[in-house]
């Protein structure tokens, strides 16, 4: 938002070590996320991207290492303080994780009601504005999650994640399972929210289109650590087998598109 907050990291991870049984996922991993970032976490399947995302908001603890969220250690302070810190972040889970017993309206109203002290009229206004924000119509509010399509589930889940106007938004595979048009629209939506709300966004993706359309910074997770961070071009320029391999496909697609255009 303001200039003085521009340089301190929103998330600061240092020396993260994680393992599942004998299998190391992260070793001595360092990562900083700054205010205003649209950071893409990319890496192969099973590289621990989602694990890293979960660790950022204390859904899972690393075996070693320190994590700071909004400049404070994740575990610091009494329970109420830890929970308040967590509420400043919104999360969009891969499958949406909507409460299937609640309507769309109640799903989005849930974090607001948890907050306490709000009038029903105010909750209504907040929910309706969130629906408008994610381009859903008011009549969708009374549907149950089971009645929604995949793209709508993502948008409702995003609306719920945005209910408290968080400063930080974590997205796990935001465009997975959406068709190219929907995924392009979803990317556009997140971009506009990022500008409008001054959000910091961290997202995990496998989709190179999403990556190039959304990210203003890229972090490549491979070999148990962050191989490179920077703009897409900077990361692309790094000479490493994994990165070359990962982006080779992208350039192949790009070239194919060009030849097709030339041919037609």
């Amino acid at each position, binding site marked *: 938002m303001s200039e003085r907050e521009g340089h301190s990291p929103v998330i600061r991870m240092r020396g993260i070590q994680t393992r599942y049984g004998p299998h190391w996922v992260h070793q001595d991993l360092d990562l900083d996320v700054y205010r205003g970032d649209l950071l893409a976490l990319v890496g192969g399947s099973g590289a621990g991207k989602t694990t890293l995302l979960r660790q950022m908001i204390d859904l899972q603890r690393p075996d070693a290492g320190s994590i700071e969220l909004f400049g404070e250690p994740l575990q610091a302070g009494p329970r109420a303080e830890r929970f308040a810190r967590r509420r400043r972040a919104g999360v969009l889970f891969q499958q949406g994780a909507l409460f299937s017993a609640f309507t769309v309206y109640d799903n989005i109203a849930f974090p607001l009601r948890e907050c306490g002290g709000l009038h029903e009229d105010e909750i209504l206004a907040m929910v309706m*504005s969130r629906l408008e924000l994610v381009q859903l119509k008011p009549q969708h509010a009374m549907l149950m999650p089971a009645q929604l399509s995949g793209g709508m589930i993502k948008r409702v889940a995003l609306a719920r994640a945005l209910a408290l106007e968080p400063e930080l938004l974590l997205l796990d595979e935001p465009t997975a399972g959406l068709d190219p048009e929907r995924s392009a629209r979803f990317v556009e939506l997140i971009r506009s929210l990022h500008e409008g709300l001054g959000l910091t966004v961290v997202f995990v993706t496998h989709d190179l289109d999403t990556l190039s359309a959304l990210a203003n910074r890229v972090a490549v997770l491979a070999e148990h650590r962050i191989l490179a961070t920077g703009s897409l071009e900077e990361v692309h320029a790094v000479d490493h087998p994994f990165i070359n391999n990962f982006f080779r496909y992208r350039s192949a697609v790009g070239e194919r598109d060009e030849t097709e255009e030339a041919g037609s």
Partner: protein
Amino acid sequence: MKTRAHAEALSHAPPPSLAREGSRVVLRGDWCLFALRPRLLILRAQLRLQTQHLTEWDLSAVTRIDAFGALLLLRCWGKTEPASVIMSDIQRAAFDRIRNAAHQSLPHTPIDWLSPVRVVGEWVLGAASHLYDFTTMLGLVVLEVLRLVIEPRNIPFKEFSAALYKTGLRAMPISALVGFLIGVVLSYLSALQLRNFGAEALIINILGIGIIRELGPVLVSILVAGRSGSAITAQLGVMRVTEEIDALSAMGVSRHQRLVWPKVLALACAMPLLVAWTSLAALAGGMVCAQLLLDIEWAYFFSVLPNVVPIENLYIGLAKGAVFGTAIALIACHFGLRVKPNTESLSANTTASVVTAITSVILLDALFAMLTRGIGVPLR
């Protein structure tokens, strides 16, 4: 060190406040939801006091404002916003995000006089749909049996054996324990009464007929309905939620052949065995207690039992077991297949499955008692 200072600055941001300065209302501090919440009552009251149309509003001292903060002000201003509001573009954006929705209020739902009629109607239709689904499933399972007789190659032996192991063998410890303890209790209470009449030897008749004919089958059925019935419903329900049942259908595999049929058959086979096992445990419990309280030797108990309990009682008990087992499995599968893909439906159906199974078992037991009233009861 810098980050720490920054964090301090954030957490010690001035709380939201509102003051009247001449003809102006000056807002200060952090007007975000979490900062507002502790002072919401006071701020609401203060906002209500402002005569909004005459005043000028100054938001330049507000450090942050989110959509909720904007909503509070918009609702205070009403439909006509004050002529002069001093705020930055970022603050204006927060107002824009909520402005369209700000004056909506909850729609009044008209009182529905017909709702009692509708409740009854829905209940009847629900019962009818249950009956329809259950009959359909029963028919399909029977057809499946015929199909398997023609093509025995398709008999799902693995599924059957897995179900037999899970619902039968794994239920043995708990049913033995419960049976033994019930046997002890029953024997103890009967012994106290019988001793008053000097009719100690009759305890063998009471325990024998009571346990073998009635208590064994019903006790096991209730245990199995709670244990395996709920498991079957939950398993099928989760398979429904995760689309596994659709995947089976897509591969051209009949769900009734592969999922329902083995479970029904397994319970129909396992239940008589469990009934025998539990009755045995209950008789053992009764025998131990009778020996301790009434000095009835185990050998005597064993030698008299066949004489006072006609063998028909055992057949009735085992038949009951098979029928109850079939009923429990069918009911559990019925509710499992009715689960809709959400958590609420899963839990509701599991509950309904267990309750219905236990109720039906007891109804069937009453039916059995009526049909077999002349069989196996020695009348002297």
